[in-house]
């Protein structure tokens, strides 16, 4: 698999991360590190599509990365409209693609 987390030999700041933990995206188990946002953890796993649009069902992912564009919305533990670029990923979190407004996923 593609190695998208910065490799130690390229990391000028030499960051030490805490122990990896699992969370799920669309039922698939994905590994993340403490402090990572949902968006970063998904990108690191090679996942770029976080939601599909209301009208045309087009795929969208991380765009502005700083909480302004609302393109990276995902469903987190049954709650839609969570900004993947801002929300920190937690152990055993259940993340799903948000379809449209996410109404159909509410509470599921």
């Amino acid at each position, binding site marked *: 698999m*593609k190695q*998208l*987390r*910065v*490799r130690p*030999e*390229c*990391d*000028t*700041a*030499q*960051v*030490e*991360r*805490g122990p990896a933990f699992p969370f799920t995206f669309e039922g698939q188990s994905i590994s993340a*590190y*403490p*402090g*990572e*946002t949902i*968006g*970063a953890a998904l*990108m*690191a796993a090679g996942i*770029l*599509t*976080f939601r599909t*649009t*209301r*009208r*045309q069902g*087009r*795929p*969208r*992912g*991380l*765009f*502005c*990365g*700083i*909480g*302004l*564009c*609302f*393109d990276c*919305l995902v469903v987190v533990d049954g709650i839609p*409209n969570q900004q993947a*670029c*801002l929300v*920190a990923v937690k152990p055993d979190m259940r993340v799903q693609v948000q379809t449209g407004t996410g109404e159909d996923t509410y509470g599921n």
Partner: protein
Amino acid sequence: METEVAIVGAGPAGLSAAVAASEAGCRVTIVDAYALPGGQYYKQMPGEFHPRRPETLYHDFSQAQQLFAKLDDHARVQVLSGTTVWTVQAASTPGDPVTLYLNTGAGSVGLRAEKVILAPGAYDRVLPFPGWDLPGVMTMGAAQTLVKSQRVLPGLRVVLSGSGPFLLPVAAGLAQAGAQVVAVYEATTPLQWARHAPRVWNHWDKLREGGDYVQLLRKQGVPLQFGRAVIRASGDERVQRVTVARLSADWQPIAGSEEQREVDAVCIGYGFVPSLELSSLLGCTHRYDPVQATFVVQHDADMQSSRAGVFVAGEITGIGGSAVAMPQGTLAGLAVARQLGRLSESAAQRKMAPYRKALRHRQAFAVLLQYLFRLRPGWLSWMTPETLVCRCEEVPFQQIEAAIKDDHARDVKTVKALTRCGMGLCQGRVCGPSVAAITAALTGQDPAQLGALMGRPIVKPITLGALCDTSH
């Protein structure tokens, strides 16, 4: 809640303002949307990350460290992180306290402040082109945040396209972090800059900073190409290739110059757009700056806006980066302290003098950069009829064209009403400047007269649940 000085934004401007005001004896509350203070420029890594060499994180690490240290020292400064201002209530009598309504994530709470300093910063300007909505296409800021604070690459084969000095540190950061930077495309050319060369006299420090990045790119084998831009991105469900074209002086693609590049990430940034949501809502006077192609907040020499008691600092006064934002923040902080009676007129003037001088010097350079990297109108021709302009509401260019040509919309608000441009969750932050530029171009009017997609009573989306759960 109550405070003497409320500061919105914990970037270089807001932090500088907080330090100045609190050192003069004011009680300060900083409201910031992110988990940790620093803004975009001094964005901090999550607390769970432990960098063994933190000094490599910022170009001016010692300055950042000083700022954070001073903040920690002051018992009079309260930082509300992870908190957004979702609306404001302006004072009915000028100079009276202003109430900011905060979304803390656990409900809405009012913050009544004697004085307000707005330092909300700016965000990337992205020009629409076919395929810019594909996953894998993102702003320069997104890429930088991913790499710098999350230590994740946006892709393995990356191109950067845009204009302005920000391209260089982002490209250098990506290359250093192990991404293959296929190319950096700067839409302007050194030839266009050449006749302004005398104006860089005395700004060697800034030139050296740029030179350092260029050298780093050269060392990493990253091609830096001028007068070119990514004008199309394509791929199946995610970006797989881009079309790059040579541009004429006004950014029209030159026929026959197109070439394809295989990539898995594209970073776009044509400078920055100031965050004018709160200044609009508070009724501050704005002026249109044709060089920056955006409105900016007007202010006096003490950084006070047209509304008494509402001060501004940093990017919302015009894009100038941290070098401008910090002295502006300090001036705003000192001016607030004087208004609150914590500094005498003479003491305030004495403290302000060196910052005014630094500001004049740095602003001269910022204005030069704004001019050299200004948008050229040819970008409008990158769009096809189907290219989305408003990503949230999925409004294509042809629909805006129809609103103007067939339905005779003459200003931005009418275009919005007819097409739903800017009615989505981003509230026009992303498409607003493009919609204004398209409307100006198609109606042949001066953008200064068209208005902007600003001034919403609700500044940031908030859930009904959070609204109902108000704590007073």
